[in-house]
């Protein structure tokens, strides 16, 4: 199968699926966004590593995937993320690089890339 054929077939399948997921909304949209955010973060960290950074990949992927879930929880009124929780997540990342990266592991870059991704 040629590259163009694969591209066209994927688009033909992907476009209606996108509309169906958006139409379904709620948990379906949230799970889809969560998967995409997690995969996107994974790709981001792969590229960051290729560019010479050393991010905290697992923490970053989990945090990215949690964002849609937290937004959905806020919409449902189940849980509203207090600002302080975000601060504690940042502090945990900052603290973890003391052991996970150390002096030679460019700890500031590691945290910055993890938060960005």
């Amino acid at each position, binding site marked *: 199968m040629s*590259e*163009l054929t*694969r*591209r*066209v*077939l*994927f*688009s033909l399948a*992907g476009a209606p699926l*996108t*509309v169906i997921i*958006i*139409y379904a*909304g709620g948990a379906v*949209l*949230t799970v889809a*966004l969560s998967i*995409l*955010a*997690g*995969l*996107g*973060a*994974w*790709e*981001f960290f*792969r*590229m*960051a*590593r*290729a*560019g010479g950074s050393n991010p905290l990949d697992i923490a970053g992927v989990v*945090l*990215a*995937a949690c*964002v*849609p879930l937290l*937004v*959905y929880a806020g*919409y449902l009124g189940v849980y509203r993320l207090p600002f302080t929780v975000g601060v504690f997540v940042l502090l945990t990342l900052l603290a973890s690089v003391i052991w996970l990266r150390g002096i030679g592991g460019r700890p500031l870059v590691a945290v910055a890339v993890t*938060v*960005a*991704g």
Partner: protein
Amino acid sequence: MYPALLTYMFPIRYHDYAVGDVAGTVLVMFPIMVTWGTDTGAYVFGRLMGKRKLIPSVSPGKTVAGSVGGLLVAVVMCALYARFILEPLAQLTLTPLGILAFAIAISVADQIGDLFESLIKRDAGVKDSSSLFPGHGGVLDRFDSLLFALPVAYLLLGHLLVRSPG
């Protein structure tokens, strides 16, 4: 944070003015269609008239003509979508000035998103962010424009959207 910006689909889908599933879906598809218009216009105009490069050090394929063409097609796409899809299906619309502002803002955000992803890929020395989607690269390749366009769309729709009369 960056890939999680797709989450802006959610508040657009459940915008206060979007009553019902169809209206919410149509509203989310609005910035998606404008970015699609921008990308298509940029590709066509770039192929036909593109001589002067936009930012060759970041993305050698992008041209000034493509960028302007993308902007023009975005305005047309935005006007057509607002008139023939948003208004009848969601009972929502934008003023002519609103259409212009929305199209320009989304198109610019789209193109900056595209350039940003090109920059990080170039820095990393990779062609695609991954090969998750056959022929399309990865999640970031597919959604690079939307990651910038969706927050802008959410911000603007809150100010520009009006309920259509009748």
